[in-house]
């Protein structure tokens, strides 16, 4: 129903000068988000994690790759100078966790964004132009989708060797299909909307329609998906590590820390615990935030 919010008066532009300041619609979403306890917990955790990533060099007591001393092998948590202990190479676990956050999140976030970009581009092309273009894109996508994500990623990593760019490419290839479908159906919905027709009635070009009407209106759901994808990619990456396809040995990365600590599980359970916690905590908080975002964008879900 009509709910009239009074905006800061713009009557000022009577005289000719327009103070064209656009109040963000995001405000409303943020307001709803703030009411969601889970999402706020997720957000705070995430901010903390991101701070850790940014200030990794300051926080981490040691350089991640270098062996401290053989004597420190498997030092337990609480050892002086090594609050979380050392791993089987005598490396400081805290430092590796903190540096590992960088690799883990970098890959997850970038892959999430690139898959979104690739998917959105293809999806909006397919949706807006329809016809043959749509057919070709969607049929190839069907084929793409029939190869399970994990299998595809493994083949790509095996073929190109494991490195951060390759992981990003592989994960992008595994995840972009979701976006194509998502964006395409969004676009198909929107193309029939009267406001798109209105824009055409005003003489707008297809590019303008896609960029200024369609993309902004699918942005919400895309954003939610990008967020949630970050968490699945963190987990996905750890799965790859587990089967030996993630970053090569000395590079700190949560998944590979976890899987390499597994052989020491009986002697030093905390070695498994900490990276596992890091993964779970990150994925958990991203999920909380993503879910909260979705609720905030679709208030119907709440009542």
């Amino acid at each position, binding site marked *: 129903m009509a709910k009239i919010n009074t905006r800061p008066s713009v009557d000022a532009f009577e005289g000719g000068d327009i103070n064209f300041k656009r109040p963000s619609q995001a405000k409303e979403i943020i307001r709803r988000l703030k009411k969601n306890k889970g999402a706020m917990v997720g957000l705070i955790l995430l901010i903390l994690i991101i701070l850790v990533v940014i200030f990794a060099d300051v926080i981490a007591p040691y350089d991640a790759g270098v062996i401290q001393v053989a004597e420190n092998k498997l030092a337990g948590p609480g050892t002086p100078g090594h609050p979380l202990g050392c791993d089987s190479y005598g490396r400081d676990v805290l430092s590796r966790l903190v540096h590992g956050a960088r690799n883990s999140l970098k890959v997850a976030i970038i892959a999430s964004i690139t898959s979104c970009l690739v998917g959105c581009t293809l999806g909006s092309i397919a949706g807006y132009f329809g016809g043959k273009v749509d057919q070709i894109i969607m049929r190839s996508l069907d084929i793409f989708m029939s190869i399970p994500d994990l299998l595809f990623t493994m083949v790509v990593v095996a073929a190109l060797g494991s490195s951060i760019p390759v992981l990003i490419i592989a994960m992008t290839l595994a995840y972009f299909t979701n976006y194509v479908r998502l964006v395409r159906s969004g676009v198909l919905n929107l193309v029939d909307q009267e406001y798109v027709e209105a824009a055409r009635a005003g003489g707008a070009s297809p590019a303008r329609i896609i960029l200024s009407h369609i993309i902004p209106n699918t942005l919400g759901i895309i954003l939610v998906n990008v967020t949630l994808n970050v968490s699945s990619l963190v987990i996905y990456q750890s799965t790859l590590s587990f089967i030996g396809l993630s970053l090569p040995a000395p590079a700190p990365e949560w998944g590979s820390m976890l899987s390499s600590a597994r052989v020491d599980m*009986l*002697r030093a359970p905390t070695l498994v615990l900490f990276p596992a916690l890091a993964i779970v905590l990150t994925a958990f908080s991203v999920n909380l935030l993503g879910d909260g975002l979705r609720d905030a964008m679709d208030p119907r879900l709440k009542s």
Partner: protein
Amino acid sequence: GCGKKSDGGDGTRTLVLRNTAGLSTNDPHATTNTHDYTVFENIYEGLYDLNEATGGYDLRLAEKVEANDDATEYTVTLKQGVKFHNGETMTADDVVFSYAHAQKDAHMGSYCRPLDHVEKVDDYTVKIVMNQPFSPIGHMLHKVKIMSKKGVEELGNDFGKVPNKVGTGPYMWDENNYNPLSSWSAVAFEDYYRGKAKIEKITWNVIADDTSAITALQNGELDYMVVPISYWEDIKASNKFNCVEKESNEVMLFCINVESKTHGELLRNDNIRLAMMYALDRDGINKLVCDGYGTPTYMYINPNYAAAAPAADSLKNPIPYNLQKAKELLAQEGYPDGIDIGEFNVAAGRNENFGVAVQAQLEAAGIKSTLVVSDYNVAGDRNVAQEYDICIAYDCGNYDFNNFEQQSSSAAIGLTNVLFNGPSGKFNDLSAKFDEWLKEGSSTADEAKRLEIYTEMYNAYYDTHTQVPLINLPSCVAYSKDLNAIAVPTDYRVYDWSWNS
């Protein structure tokens, strides 16, 4: 399903063993995988048998082996009264057939390369004709298994895929439980010519993952297991098992590629290689990777395992760990701030662990490198193709220095796989000399002479600082207290084992 569970003492208890992977075939000539051979050694037999516990070979299906003067023809008298599992009696025909069969298959064929052919002399005598004198012939006689000609031919194309009865070993495949992917059994062969085995039945379960294997061992689901070092303390402490730890014949090697396309110039600098030698702290590596159970070594073959190998003190200039000296050498060559020597190629798994440790030690001296980890086979191929700057190589199964000849053509890095006669010509002369030494060594029947040649070769080789031994890996075996086993790292012979009564 599984065999019956223990009631101890009466010998009907099934022995449960771990295999790290499924059987890829049961044709003993169609594979060289260790995990297949471990099983086969209990089912098939060759003319010789390897004695892993003491080193050297025992006669098995051969009664007597005599070489001619130039060691190109061996006359083998066969044991009589040996029965195949299918009831047939072993004769010279079967031996001729088996060698021909082995030669045909590329896997076993590589062990038989100097072999020309085997011919029947009479029913119980064959003549092995070689193309050249070949000192490691013992290994060939051990590796090539004798199979029933009739049995193999009857199975036709199915041979290798279904349980067969073509072996002579103390155990035969159990037709009731044969799932090569997950679990299979063998039962004692009643008519075994050395007498029926004391343990009635063996079941192998495929447990790829170490943690689940340890769990199974702890739960009594396994009777015998080679324990990964990281679990060793726990297993020992549990007091539930007989624990045997000893040196194995597996050695870890560190290699430098002087013919590297990218960093060759740097690596051809003798002082830089020497600096790397000084940077290697074998004790530290041992502690980090082997929990101190390994043995730091400069020997290419563990003398304790090999029947004929240079003694441990035969190396003239072993280079000890000296970080200071390493740094000095670098500075002397104009790199006081360190250098980058490129890619450090390692295979995933254990080699990778060594890689991590070595990389860090080199880095401590200012020598930076980038680890490139790939699958075992891929890494092997890269090594063969010389696509690396430095690498970790792994060598096992050398029971005789004689095997060098074989290793030289193997994909796993052996002595000569470090390219010598490359375009840079750095060690071309030595390389040529090497071939001579090897040829001479392998065709010399006189063992003392051979040892002398090898010792010389070995010192010359070490002094190039292109491939150096680091650690002799430990072998830790735990087995049930009910079991009388002879603990060996790989090729156990269950025939010699028994249950405690």
